[in-house]
C-alpha cells in the first residue's frame, strides 16, 4: 500500500512523437502545483492570523525582514537550512524507492559523534587530514545506522518507518550514554560533551559571504543525488522499485540491494550533516547535535516530493521561517508555535496538492501517444 501512495515521480514517460513541448509543460506542472499549495496555505494562515487579531501583511513583512531582508537575515536563514539539505536527503533517497525513513535524527547525532571520536587521536595532524577523516567516519556511521533499517526492511520485511523510528530512540540513547559516560570531557561539568577537535581543525564560514560551510556541501550533494536518481540506471531501477515493487521484482531488478543502498546513502548524508555541525559549529559532540534537524528533514523531503533539487528551495523556505520566528515573537507577540502552525498548513497543502498532478489536461502529453 505505502509503496503506491508514496511513489511520487513515476519514471519518465516516453513522450508522444508530435509533442515537443510536453517536457516544458511537465516542468510547469511541477512548479504550479506547489505554488498553488503555498498560496492555499498562505490564505488559510491569514485567516488564522486575522482570528488572532493580527495583520497578515505585518506577518509577511516580518518574515521577509527576518529571513531574507538583509544579508544578516540571509546568513541566518542559510545557517538553518544547511543541515536540512542533507537530512532531507536521508528521507528523499529511500523515498524514491517508496520507503519512508523517519529516523534520520539518530544518524545525525551518531555521525557527529563518530566524526568527533575519529578526530580526537589525530587532532594534531592538521585540518587537511582530520576533516576528510571526519567526513568519512561521520557518513559511514550514518550510513550504517540507516542501512540497518534498510536491511531489516529488505531482508526481514520489517516496516521501515517503525524500525527507523525505534532505532532512532536507541541511537539517541547510545549517543547520550557515550557522551555523558565513556567519552565525556571531565571539564564539561554541567553540559556533558566529548573532548574538542581543536580550533585549528574547525571548518570556517565561507570567506566574504560568511555563510555556513554546510551550504556549498549540501548543494553539491543534492545535485549529485539528483543526477544519481534521475540520470543513472541505478536511479532508474530505484524509481521503478518505488513505482511498482512487484513489477521491479518481475523485471529481475535487485530490489533488496537497491533498498539497502538507498538507505545507506541517505544515512550517509545525515551523518555528514552531523559531521559538518561538529566541524563548523560545536567543535565537539554534545546534546546540541540533537536539534531536530533529522525531523525537519522529513518535512522538507515531503515538500520537495523526494526530488533532491527541489530540496534546495524548500530547505531555504523552512530555514527562513525558522530565522523569522524570533522576530515574529518579538514584534508581534506571537508564540513560538505560530511558525509551526504555518509549517503544518504548508505541509498539509503540499500533500493535498499531490492529487493535482495529472488532473489538468493541458499539462498532459498530446498527439498520437
Amino acid at each position: 500500500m505505502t509503496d503506491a501512495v508514496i511513489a511520487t515521480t513515476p519514471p519518465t514517460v516516453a513522450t508522444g512523437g508530435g509533442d515537443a513541448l510536453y517536457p516544458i509543460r511537465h516542468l510547469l506542472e511541477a512548479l504550479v502545483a506547489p505554488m498553488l499549495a503555498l498560496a492555499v496555505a498562505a490564505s488559510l494562515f491569514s485567516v488564522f492570523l486575522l482570528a488572532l487579531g493580527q495583520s497578515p501583511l505585518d506577518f509577511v513583512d516580518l518574515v521577509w525582514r527576518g529571513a531574507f531582508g538583509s544579508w544578516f537575515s540571509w546568513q541566518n536563514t542559510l545557517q538553518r537550512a544547511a543541515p536540512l539539505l542533507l537530512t532531507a536527503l536521508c528521507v528523499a533517497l529511500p523515498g524514491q524507492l517508496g520507503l519512508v525513513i523517519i529516523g534520520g535524527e539518530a544518524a545525525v547525532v551518531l555521525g557527529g559523534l563518530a566524526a568527533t571520536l575519529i578526530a580526537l587521536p589525530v587532532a594534531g595532524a592538521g585540518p587537511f587530514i582530520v576533516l576528510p577523516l571526519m567526513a568519512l567516519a561521520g557518513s559511514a556511521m550514518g550510513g550504517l545506522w540507516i542501512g540497518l533499517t534498510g536491511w531489516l526492511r529488505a531482508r526481514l520485511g520489517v516496516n521501515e518507518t517503525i524500525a527507523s523510528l525505534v532505532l532512532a530512540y536507541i541511537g539517541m540513547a547510545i549517543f547520550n550514554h557515550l557522551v555523558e559516560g565513556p567519552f565525556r570531557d571531565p571539564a564539561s561539568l554541567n553540559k556533558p560533551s566529548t573532548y574538542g577537535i581543536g580550533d585549528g581543525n574547525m571548518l570556517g564560514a565561507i570567506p566574504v559571504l560568511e555563510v555556513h560551510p554546510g551550504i556549498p556541501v549540501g548543494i553539491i550533494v543534492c545535485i549529485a543525488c539528483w543526477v544519481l536518481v534521475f540520470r543513472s540506471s541505478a536511479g532508474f531501477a530505484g524509481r521503478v522499485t518505488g513505482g511498482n515493487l512487484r513489477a521491479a521484482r518481475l523485471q529481475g531488478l535487485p530490489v533488496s540491494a537497491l533498498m539497502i543502498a538507498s538507505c545507506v546513502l541517505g544515512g550517509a548524508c545525515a551523518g555528514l550533516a552531523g559531521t559538518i555541525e561538529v566541524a563548523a559549529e560545536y567543535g565537539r559532540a554534545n546534546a546540541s547535535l540533537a536539534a531536530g534537524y533529522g525531523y525537519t528533514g522529513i518535512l522538507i523531503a515531503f515538500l520537495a516530493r523526494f526530488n533532491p533539487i527541489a530540496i534546495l528551495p524548500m530547505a531555504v523556505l523552512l530555514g527562513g521561517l525558522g530565522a523569522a520566528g524570533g522576530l515574529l515573537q518579538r514584534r508581534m507577540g506571537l508564540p513560538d508555535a505560530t511558525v509551526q502552525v504555518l509549517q503544518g498548513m504548508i505541509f498539509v497543502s503540499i500533500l493535498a496538492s499531490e492529487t493535482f498532478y495529472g488532473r489538468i489536461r493541458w499539462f498532459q502529453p498530446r498527439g498520437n501517444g
Partner: protein
Amino acid sequence: MTSDSLISRRTALTGLGAAGFAATTGLSTQPAFAKDLTVGFIYVGPKDDYGYNQAHAEAAAVLKKMPGVKILEEEKVPETDDVSKTMESMIKLDGASLMFPTSFGYFDPYMLKMAAKYKDVQFRHCGGLWSKDKHPMNTGSYFGYIGMGQYLNGIAAAHATKSKKIGFIAAKPIPQVLININSFALGAKSVDPSITTTVIFTGEWSMPVKEAEAANSLADQGIDVVTCHVDGPKVIMETAERRKIFACGYHADQSKLAPKGYLTGAEWNWITVYKKFIADTQAGKAPGNFVRGGLAEGFVKMSPYGPGLSPAGRKAVDTAKAEILKGGFSVFKGPLKDNKGNMVVPAGKALVETAVELESQNYLVEGVLGSIG
C-alpha cells in the same frame, strides 16, 4: 509602533516585488527603538512551563511595566548556533544593548562569540560560569543558591512522609542538579535520619512523558513525597496530585497544579537580579559580572505553604529558614559519606553555600537510593 508598521508594510511590498531587494536591506538593519534601554530575554523552553523558563518570564513581565525599558522575549530557542542568531537578530534588528540568555548551554561558545563580536552590548548569563581571567568584561553571569530551598523542601517532606521514603526526579547527573538532590535528602535526614530519597534521572531537561512515568513509578514504590529538578515540573506535580501523594515545587510556584498535595517549593526570584542589572545600566554603570545570591539576598524564595504541611512542619521549616538567613549555614557538613560509603566531606569541615567545591559535586550522599552512572 503604528508608523513603524506602516513603513514596514510598504517595505514588504517593495521587497516582494523583487526589485526592491536592496532598499529593504538598507531599511531593515536600523534598530527600531533608540531611546529606551532594550533588553533581550532568551528562553530555552516555553514561557509558561511552570518551571525554569517561567521563573525568568515572570520577572520579565514585571520589567515590562517599568518606564524606559523595552523587553524583547524569545522562547524555545535551542542551545545551538540558533541562539547566536537570535542574539544577533535582537541586537541588529531591534537594537538590544543588554542581553539575558537564560539557558545554561547558551554561554559557551554562543554568548562568548556574540560578546566578542558586539563589544558595546552587555551580556549576562544565568548559570554562573563567568570568571575574570577567562571571559570578556562585557559578559557576566548570575545564579542563585537554590540548594538551600531544596534543603527546606526536604524538611517539609520529612514532616509529611509516612512511609519514610521520598523521591526526586532529576534531569541529568550534573553538579547543579546533584547539589539539589543531596540538599533535599540532607534536609529530610536532618529531621529523621532513617528517611531515604529515591532518585530517578530522566536524562533530558524536558521530557514530560518520562517525568510522568518516573512520578508514577515512585508512587508505585510507596514513596509519598516527590520533588524534582527538570525544566518544567508541571506533569510531575500533576501526577503526584493524581496519585494522592505530596509534592515540593521547584523553579516556580506550582501550588495551582497540586492544590491538595503541594507542601512548599524552592523558587527563583529573578526580579531582584534583573532590577539591579537594569538600574545599573540606566545609571551608566556596567552591571555586575559575577552575581550570586541565595535566600538572604532575595535571589531564591519559598512558595507559600500548602494545606498538606502540618503546623509542626511549618514551624520546622520556618526555624531552619531563619537559621539560613542568619548566614554561614552549611548543608554539607562533615563527616559526610556518599551512598557508596566514601567519605566526601571529612569531619570538622563544613561547606557553606558559596563554597566552590560544591560546584564540582559528583556524588549522591548516604541515604539517596540511585546512582549517577
